[in-house]
C-alpha cells in the first residue's frame, strides 16, 4: 500500500486507491498513480458533475456534434457547421493573469481547430472583485492583455464578451473563453484513435515541466528542489499555435487522419487515453521519443506535463510521409511516438521498457462518479426576503429617492459592470478576418460567413448575483439573456455551450447550487430550443472557504440567413418610433440598482416565463428578417432606463424622448419610480422603427401575443424619460455617454501614449 501522504498529495481518496488496485489487479507504480490522479481529478473526470450534466438537453435536428468531443457543432446550412465551446481558465489566471488568460485562449482555440474548423471568433466572460479594490485593476489589466496578446497575434477577432465586478470574485476571478470556428459539416474530425498499427504522432511545442500540478506531485522521487523546477505557470506561444493551426488545417484537408486531439489539461495522458477510449482501442507510446525542452524528465513528468501548444494525431497507415511533409513546411516536426493497439490499454514505455499499463476505460468512462449530498445554503431563505418598505437609506440619500432619477441613472451608467467595456475591447483585434458586422459593444458579436449570405451572432452571458439568490431561476435567466442577445441581432438561436463556475462541490450547499443551476439551464434550453452541445465545469472556485457566486456562463450561437439584415443596439437617427416589446413589472430583487443605491443584494431575481420569452425572441428575429426594425436592444442590467440610454450611445448624440408606465412595488413614490426605471424584469426588448412601420410592428407583436407599446421617439440630444407621466430622467446624451464610457478607464492612471 502506498504512503497515505503520497495519495493525499495526488488528491486521491483511499477508496479511489482501492478501485485503482482493482482495475489493475495490482498496486500501481508512481507513474500510474500520477496518471490516475489527473484523469480522476474533478477537472478531467467530472466526477461530481457528471450525473447532473446528463440531464441537459443535447439533441436537435441542427446538432451535428453534442457533448463528448473537443467541441460541439451545429448545422448552419449550405453544408457548413459552426463548431464552438467555452472553457474556464480561472485558477491559472489568478496566479498569473497575463499568461493564465493567454493560455486559456490558446486552449480553447485548439479545441476548435482540433475538430477541423477554422476559428473565426473569440468571446470571453470575466468576473473580478470591485474595480476600486487595490488588486483588481492589475488583474483586469493582465487578463485583458493576455487575451489580447494571444488572440491578436494568432489573428482571430475577439468580437464580444462580458465583464462584471462583484466582491465575491475578489479572491477568485473568473476567466471563461469561448471560441467558434467554421468547418464543412462533412469534414468534422474527431478525437479518436483506432485501426491497429496506425501511427500516433506528436506535434508542436516541446514538453517541459510546466503545469505539473502541485497537488498531484509527490513521492520520494521528487525532492524540494525538483518541485522548484516545475513552475505551475504555463507560458503561451501564440506563434507556435498559429503554425499548428495552419498546419493542422492543411493536414485535415488531406485524407490522412484517423483522429486528432490537443493536449490540454493532463496533457499527453488525457489525449492518449481519451482518444483510445473513444475509438475502443489501445494506445502505446514511448515517452523517450517525446520532444523535451528540459533534460532528465521522468516518464511521470512527461505524461503529466501541461506544456501548451501540443497536438496528438493518429495517422492512417501509409500516409505518414505526407503528414510529416506538411508539418515540415510549417517548420514543425511531427514525431512518431507510438501506435494504436487492439488491447484497450494505455501502455507507456520508456526506451522500450513498460513504465505504465492501464485500461483506457478505467481512466475515462469508468472513472468514479459521485452523487454528492446536496442541501440549500443557509443564507438562502434570508437573502431571498426583500421588504422594499424597510430598505436602509440609499447611498445617495434624498437625492436618488426624491429628486429626479438622473443621479441614479448616472450611478448605474458609471458602474464598471454596466459602463462601456471599450477599455477592454479596443485592446482586442476585433476586425481581423474582415467578417465582423457587429463590433463588440453593440450587443451580440456578429460575424459573416464568407462565401455565403449568412452570418452568426454570438453572445456569452451569466449573472452570478441572480444565481446566488436563486440558482435555478438565475441560470434560466442567463440562458434567456444569451439567446435574447443573439435574437436582438436578428439571429435565430441554434445552440448553446456552458461553463459552470462554482465553489467546492464537497459542500452540500454548493452541490445544491450546482444541481439547481443545471436544472435551470436544462429547462430554459429545452423551452427556447437551444440544445447544449458542450461546455466545461470549473469547481473549487473559493478562497478561504468563501465561494464565488454560483456562476453558470452560457454561450449562445444564432444564425442570420441574410447577413445584411443584422441589427444592433444603436438607434439610427432622429424621427424613429421607440417600441417596448414585453412588460416591466418593477422587479428590483437582485438588481444592480439595489446593489449600487442601497448596497443590498437580496430578493428573488426577476421571474421568467419561458413561453413569453420564446415568443419574444421569435418575434424580434422575424421583425429583423422583415426589415421592420432599425435597432434592437434587450433590457438587462439597469433596466429600461439604462437600455434607452445605451440605444443613444455611439450615435453622435442622438437622444430619445420616452414615457413609461408607473409600477407600484411599495409605499415610497421614489422607489416605485426607480422600480419602473431600473427594475430588471426579463423578456423585454426595446426596438426602434421607422414611423411608417410602427403599426405593422405592433400588429405583428399582437399576432405573437407579445405585449408591445410605443414608448417614445428618437431625436434631440437628450434622454428624457417620464414615468407615470412625470419627468424622471432628463440628461444630455453627451453627459450620460461620458459617464458611461469612462466607467472603467477612470480606474486606471493616465498613461503616456
Amino acid at each position, binding site marked *: 500500500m502506498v504512503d497515505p501522504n503520497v495519495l493525499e498529495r495526488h488528491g486521491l481518496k483511499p477508496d479511489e486507491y482501492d478501485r485503482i488496485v482493482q482495475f489493475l489487479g495490482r498496486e500501481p507504480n508512481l507513474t500510474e498513480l500520477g496518471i490516475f490522479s489527473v484523469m480522476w481529478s474533478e477537472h478531467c473526470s467530472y466526477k461530481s458533475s457528471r450525473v447532473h450534466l446528463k440531464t441537459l438537453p443535447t439533441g436537435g435536428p441542427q446538432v451535428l456534434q453534442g457533448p463528448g468531443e473537443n467541441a460541439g457543432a451545429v448545422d448552419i446550412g449550405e453544408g457548413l457547421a459552426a463548431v464552438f465551446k467555452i472553457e474556464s481558465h480561472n485558477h491559472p489566471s489568478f496566479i*498569473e493573469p497575463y499568461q493564465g488568460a493567454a493560455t486559456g485562449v490558446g486552449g480553447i482555440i485548439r479545441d476548435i481547430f482540433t475538430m477541423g474548423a477554422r476559428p473565426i471568433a473569440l468571446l470571453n466572460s470575466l468576473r473580478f472583485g470591485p474595480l476600486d479594490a487595490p488588486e483588481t485593476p492589475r488583474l483586469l489589466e493582465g487578463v485583458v492583455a493576455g487575451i489580447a496578446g494571444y488572440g491578436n497575434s494568432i489573428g482571430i477577432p475577439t468580437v464580444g464578451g462580458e465583464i462584471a465586478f462583484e466582491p465575491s470574485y475578489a479572491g477568485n476571478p473568473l476567466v471563461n473563453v469561448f471560441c467558434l470556428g467554421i468547418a464543412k459539416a462533412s469534414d468534422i474530425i474527431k478525437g479518436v484513435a483506432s485501426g491497429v498499427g496506425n501511427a500516433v504522432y506528436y506535434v508542436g511545442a516541446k514538453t517541459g515541466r*510546466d503545469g505539473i500540478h502541485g497537488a498531484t506531485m509527490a513521492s520520494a522521487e521528487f525532492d524540494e528542489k525538483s518541485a522548484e523546477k516545475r*513552475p505551475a*505557470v*504555463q*507560458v503561451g*506561444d501564440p506563434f507556435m499555435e498559429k503554425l499548428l493551426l495552419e498546419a493542422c488545417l492543411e493536414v485535415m484537408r488531406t485524407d490522412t487522419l484517423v483522429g486528432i486531439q490537443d493536449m490540454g489539461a493532463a496533457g499527453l495522458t488525457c489525449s492518449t487515453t481519451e482518444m483510445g477510449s473513444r475509438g475502443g482501442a489501445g494506445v502505446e507510446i514511448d515517452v523517450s521519443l517525446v520532444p523535451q525542452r528540459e533534460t532528465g524528465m521522468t516518464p511521470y513528468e512527461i505524461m503529466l506535463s501541461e*506544456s*501548451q501548444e501540443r497536438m496528438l494525431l493518429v495517422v492512417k497507415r501509409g500516409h505518414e510521409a505526407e503528414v510529416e511533409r506538411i508539418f515540415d513546411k510549417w517548420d514543425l516536426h511531427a514525431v512518431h511516438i507510438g501506435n494504436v493497439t487492439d488491447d484497450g490499454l494505455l501502455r507507456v514505455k520508456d526506451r522500450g521498457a513498460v513504465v505504465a499499463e492501464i485500461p483506457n476505460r478505467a481512466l475515462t468512462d469508468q472513472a468514479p462518479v459521485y452523487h454528492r449530498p446536496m442541501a440549500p445554503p443557509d443564507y438562502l431563505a434570508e437573502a431571498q426576503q426583500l421588504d422594499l418598505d424597510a430598505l436602509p437609506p440609499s447611498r445617495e440619500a434624498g437625492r436618488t429617492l426624491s429628486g429626479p432619477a438622473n443621479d441614479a441613472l448616472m450611478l448605474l451608467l458609471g458602474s464598471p459592470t454596466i459602463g462601456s467595456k471599450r477599455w477592454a475591447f479596443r485592446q482586442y483585434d476585433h476586425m481581423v478576418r474582415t467578417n465582423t458586422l457587429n463590433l463588440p459593444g453593440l450587443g451580440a458579436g456578429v460575424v459573416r460567413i464568407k462565401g455565403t449570405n449568412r452570418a452568426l451572432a454570438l453572445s456569452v452571458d451569466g449573472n452570478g448575483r441572480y444565481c446566488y439568490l436563486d440558482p435555478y431561476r438565475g441560470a434560466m435567466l442567463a440562458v434567456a439573456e444569451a439567446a435574447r442577445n443573439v435574437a436582438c441581432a436578428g439571429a435565430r438561436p441554434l445552440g448553446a455551450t456552458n461553463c459552470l463556475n462554482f465553489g467546492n462541490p464537497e459542500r452540500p450547499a454548493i452541490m445544491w447550487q450546482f444541481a439547481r443551476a443545471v436544472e435551470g439551464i436544462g429547462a430554459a434550453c429545452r423551452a427556447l430550443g437551444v440544445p447544449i452541445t458542450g461546455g466545461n465545469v470549473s469547481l473549487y472556485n473559493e478562497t478561504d472557504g468563501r465561494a464565488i457566486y454560483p456562476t453558470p456562463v452560457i454561450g449562445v450561437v444564432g444564425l442570420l440567413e441574410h447577413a445584411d439584415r443584422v441589427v444592433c443596439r444603436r438607434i439610427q437617427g432622429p424621427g424613429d418610433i421607440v417600441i417596448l416589446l414585453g412588460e416591466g413589472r418593477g422587479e428590483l430583487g437582485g438588481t444592480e440598482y439595489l446593489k449600487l443605491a442601497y448596497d443590498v443584494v437580496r430578493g428573488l431575481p426577476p421571474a421568467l416565463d419561458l413561453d413569453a420569452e420564446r415568443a419574444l425572441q421569435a418575434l424580434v428575429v422575424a421583425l429583423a428578417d422583415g426589415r421592420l426594425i432599425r435597432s434592437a436592444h434587450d433590457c438587462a442590467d439597469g433596466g429600461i432606463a439604462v437600455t434607452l440610454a445605451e440605444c443613444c450611445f455611439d450615435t453622435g448624440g442622438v437622444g430619445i424622448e420616452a414615457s413609461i408606465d408607473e409600477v407600484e412595488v411599495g409605499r415610497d413614490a421614489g422607489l416605485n419610480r426607480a422600480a419602473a426605471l431600473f427594475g430588471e424584469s426579463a423578456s423585454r426588448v426595446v426596438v426602434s422603427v421607422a414611423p411608417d412601420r410602427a403599426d405593422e410592428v405592433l400588429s405583428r407583436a399582437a399576432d405573437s401575443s407579445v405585449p408591445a407599446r410605443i414608448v417614445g421617439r428618437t431625436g434631440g440630444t437628450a434622454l428624457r424619460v417620464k414615468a407615470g407621466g412625470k419627468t424622471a430622467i432628463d440628461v444630455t446624451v453627451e453627459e450620460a455617454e461620458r459617464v458611461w464610457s469612462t466607467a472603467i478607464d477612470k480606474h486606471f492612471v493616465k498613461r503616456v501614449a
Partner: protein
Amino acid sequence: MRARVFVTLKPSVFDPQGKTIADALHTLGYGGVQDVRQGKYFELDLVTTEPAQARALAAEVADKLLANPVIESYRIEVD
C-alpha cells in the same frame, strides 16, 4: 550612482521569445548560437552614493515593480 537590473524568466519557465529568436537565427544560418533567452534590462539612476544602499533600493524596486516573482527572477549590478 547607477544600478542595473536584469530580469529573466526563471530557468524552467518556457521562453517563447528566446526560442523564436533562436529558431530564426538557425534559419539565418547561425548554427553557432545554441540557445537564446530573452529578458528585460533596467538602468536606474539613484541619488545615493552608497553601493549597499543602491543595491537595496534596486532590489526593492525590482520586487515591487520590475519583476514578476511568479515567473521571473532578477540580478542587480551597481557601479
